[in-house]
């Protein structure tokens, strides 16, 4: 980020810059220009929280800053906290298949440590080199392989966090099975940091699978439903079933990863990517079986690392736009949900919005995403958001704006239609952060 290195001295910072908590610059979050502190010890971090509680200001933790454009605009002045110095591995008893880390660690660093023992945390990340575990958990990030491996709520078995008094509190533990106490691990996952600052987390881990592959299938908007239905009825057990509209396919295939349709330079169809991760014989059998079952849909197999690159590129698809200025243009991502049986409808309608939209979806999870370049006019995004939200709501789902510039975010309903339990959620928030210290304004209205 370019906006962090200017104007180091600042009189608004209440916490004195010190050895264990230097002021490293400023950061713009939404429309707030905030001092950015980088605590190097948990104690220094706790001081920042206590400071905020005393002064009734706010703290905004940031990690790799890959998802700072998610959520409503922050509403209260305060301090941004760079969490990346707190990135230690606390304990890795690999034979127990658990690891305890500080939350500032990046996904890539964690993955590397785990890979040495043949293990992993099977959660797809938008940008593993930058994204931190804290950010991943706060936003409950996930990607294609959530179908087979679940989401973070299935892996976080213990947490430590700072509460509104700056006290360290914990929930869960370091063993894989534990029902003592309320499961705040679930509550904190996806809470966008509004219920405290996560400092440490313990994960349950999985072994790296012996073999992986993706089978790509080709279809058109008109027969997407039939293709999706056929994949659903397959005798294989995929870990991911994703769909890409022509523009999303083009964006992905243009980087030379694969050319599934060598006869054509212009891709004109949709693709469904069915992924497998298992031991060797089970993966081979599933690739062969699906290829046979879906022979009408021009199956092509991606393997030998291409499948992993495909999953990664698909997860980060909204990030890269040729010709756009990334420092000024914040890409826009809308996520619509629906019953899995109906998501094809949301996807095809999303495809009809605007000329630029890259539409992808996790077919079996009922999740559709549309990515637009950052220079898409605000009124257009407003219109698309309202239209898609309506479609999603009719099919039991909702719509969240996952990324956008402040002007876009101000113009739309970021978190969708309030759920039936909205009032309970507000009560929980009121109990746990009565002074509105943690990320105020960014999550649900009222939190």
């Amino acid at each position, binding site marked *: 980020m370019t906006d962090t290195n200017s104007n180091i001295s600042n009189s608004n910072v209440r916490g004195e810059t010190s050895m264990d908590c230097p002021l490293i610059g400023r950061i713009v979050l939404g429309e707030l220009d905030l001092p950015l502190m980088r605590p190097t010890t948990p104690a220094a971090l706790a001081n920042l929280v206590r400071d905020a509680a005393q002064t009734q200001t706010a703290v905004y933790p940031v990690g790799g800053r890959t998802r700072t454009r998610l959520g409503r605009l922050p509403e209260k002045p305060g301090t941004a906290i760079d969490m990346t110095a707190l990135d230690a591995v606390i304990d890795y008893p690999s*034979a*127990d298949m658990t690891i305890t880390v500080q939350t500032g660690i990046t996904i890539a660093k964690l993955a590397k440590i785990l890979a040495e023992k*043949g*293990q992993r945390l099977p959660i797809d990340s938008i940008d593993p080199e930058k994204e931190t575990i804290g950010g991943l958990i706060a936003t409950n990030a996930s990607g294609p392989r959530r179908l087979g491996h*679940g989401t973070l*709520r*299935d892996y976080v078995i213990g947490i430590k966090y700072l*509460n509104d*008094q700056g006290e*360290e*509190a914990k929930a869960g*533990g*370091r*063993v*894989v*099975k*534990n*029902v*003592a*106490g*309320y*499961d*705040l691990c*679930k*509550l904190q*996952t*996806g809470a966008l940091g509004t219920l405290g600052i996560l400092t440490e987390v313990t994960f349950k881990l999985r*072994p790296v699978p012996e073999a992986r592959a993706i089978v790509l299938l080709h279809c058109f908007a008109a027969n997407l439903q039939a293709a999706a239905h056929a994949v659903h009825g397959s*005798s*294989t*057990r995929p870990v991911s079933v994703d769909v890409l509209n022509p523009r999303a396919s083009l964006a992905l295939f243009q980087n030379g990863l694969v050319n599934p349709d060598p006869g054509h330079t212009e891709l004109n169809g949709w693709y469904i990517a069915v992924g497998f991760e298992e*031991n*060797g*014989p*089970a*993966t081979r*059998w*599933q690739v062969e079986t699906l290829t046979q079952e879906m022979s009408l849909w021009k199956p092509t197999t991606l393997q030998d690392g291409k499948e992993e690159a495909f999953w990664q590129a698909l997860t980060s698809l909204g990030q890269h736009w040729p010709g756009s200025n990334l420092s000024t243009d914040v890409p826009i991502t809308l*996520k619509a*949900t629906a*019953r899995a*049986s109906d998501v094809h409808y949301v996807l095809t309608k999303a495809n009809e919005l605007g000329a630029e939209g890259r539409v992808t979806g996790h077919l*079996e999870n*009922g*999740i559709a995403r549309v990515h637009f370049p950052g220079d898409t006019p605000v009124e257009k995004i407003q219109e698309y958001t309202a239209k898609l939200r309506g479609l999603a709501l009719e099919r039991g*789902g*909702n719509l*969240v704006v996952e990324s956008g510039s402040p002007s876009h975010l101000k113009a739309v309903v970021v*978190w*969708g239609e309030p*759920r039936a*339990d909205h*009032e*309970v*959620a507000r*009560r*929980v*928030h009121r*109990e*746990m952060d009565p002074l509105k210290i943690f990320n105020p304004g960014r999550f649900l209205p009222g939190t």
Partner: protein
Amino acid sequence: MDAKILDQLRAVVGPAGMITNDSELLVYECDGFTIERNKPEVVVFPNDTAQVSRIVKICHQAKVPFLPRGAGTSLAGGCLPIGGGVVISLARMKRIWEVDSRNRFAVVDPGLVNVWLTNQIKSSGWHFAPDPSSQGACTIGGNVATNSGGPHTLKYGVTVNHILGVEMVLPDGEIVMLGGPVEDSPGYDLTGVTVGSEGTFGVACRSWVRITRNPHGYRTLLGVFETVDDATEAISGIIAAGIVPAALELLDSLILRAVEEAFGFGFPLDAGAVLIMEVDGIEAGLDEEASRIEEIAKKARAREIRRADTEAQRLLLWKCRKQAFGAVGRLAPSYCTQDGVVPRTRLPEMLRTIRSISEKYQIKIANVFHAGDGNLHPILLFDERDSEQVKKVLDASTEILDACLSMGGSVTGEHGIGVEKISFMPKLFSPADLGMFARLRKAFNPDGLCSPGKMLPTAGACNEAGHVHTDGAHAPNKPGRRAAL
């Protein structure tokens, strides 16, 4: 209880929908944890969520404590009606409302017996993954309240991993839907934090549960070992090899004898331990996994490895495992089972500790447990008519659970805190941790009328009505603990 309140309740459920008679109320004075008992003043049997809501509103208005109850199989006193009050039995609410295999979920009532759901859907190729040993009796509402586990949680996760949404009656009677069948509903994961809250957030009525495709096949192996240490070495080896078995269950020699007497499976009675090792999934991959497991077990000095070659053999093997607790009656008049967890690699050490505690107190302890998860179920055998033995059993239990904590584990993997283990909460959690738990509970249950005296050592606002001491682990003169099936 005020006759006016009884009249109001009767108006909701009808005269045939409630019990006020003393002798009938006896059934409801405890659950599978029998050491502490307290009779409710009335038990009501609503037929649907709307009736539950009306009952809760009456209790809320009259400031009477109330408590939901499923099948009463809790081993931790989760259904103990502290402060008397109203027990809301969900036994009559046992409908399967919807099975939507296209969208991989089912909607079920709280009183539905766990295995009934699987029985209903298995022929179409689906099942409900959480399979506690009591699945023939326990209810899905109870599973939601306690976040139940079971042998197959090793691969498939515990109850919370399979709950998408819950229709809750909050402690003021309001009906609210938490979560739902569509994934990624924006907002806090209130479903996730409600599962396992032991009834202290309200009454969980209908649940939206994830259903799971049946695996193509299974390979179920029985490893026979001379010693428990060898068996645990095999467990570590299997996990270290990157295999995720569907289940890894250990039975020691004492429990083998009881199970063999009861079911005649053909277990070798001179073995130190046997391991049930099961892999499931895509048929094409199973033989390779099973062979690797066999190899690892042999390396850990397994003296024999048998395969359950037919489905009938496999089912009998699982029957032996799941009904092991029932067979314990053959070993001693009373028994008490614990639910400690240690990191998997500390199992050998923990089992040695249990042996030395057994010798120290001269109490026989049998072991049958979810070895792959590190979740122990030591069964302490005794005679509850002998107060000396009762005291020894309680002291030995405390020592076992303390040892779990000192190895970085927990005092409960799946049974819950209830009232039984409430005195361990301050050992597990700091005042700050507990303070945050209390704040969270207050958001749901501000008056503390719903399931008072459970989970947290600090009492809810209205707990002064409770007449029961919650220091069960240290109460020497109470009758013996007995695990129910």
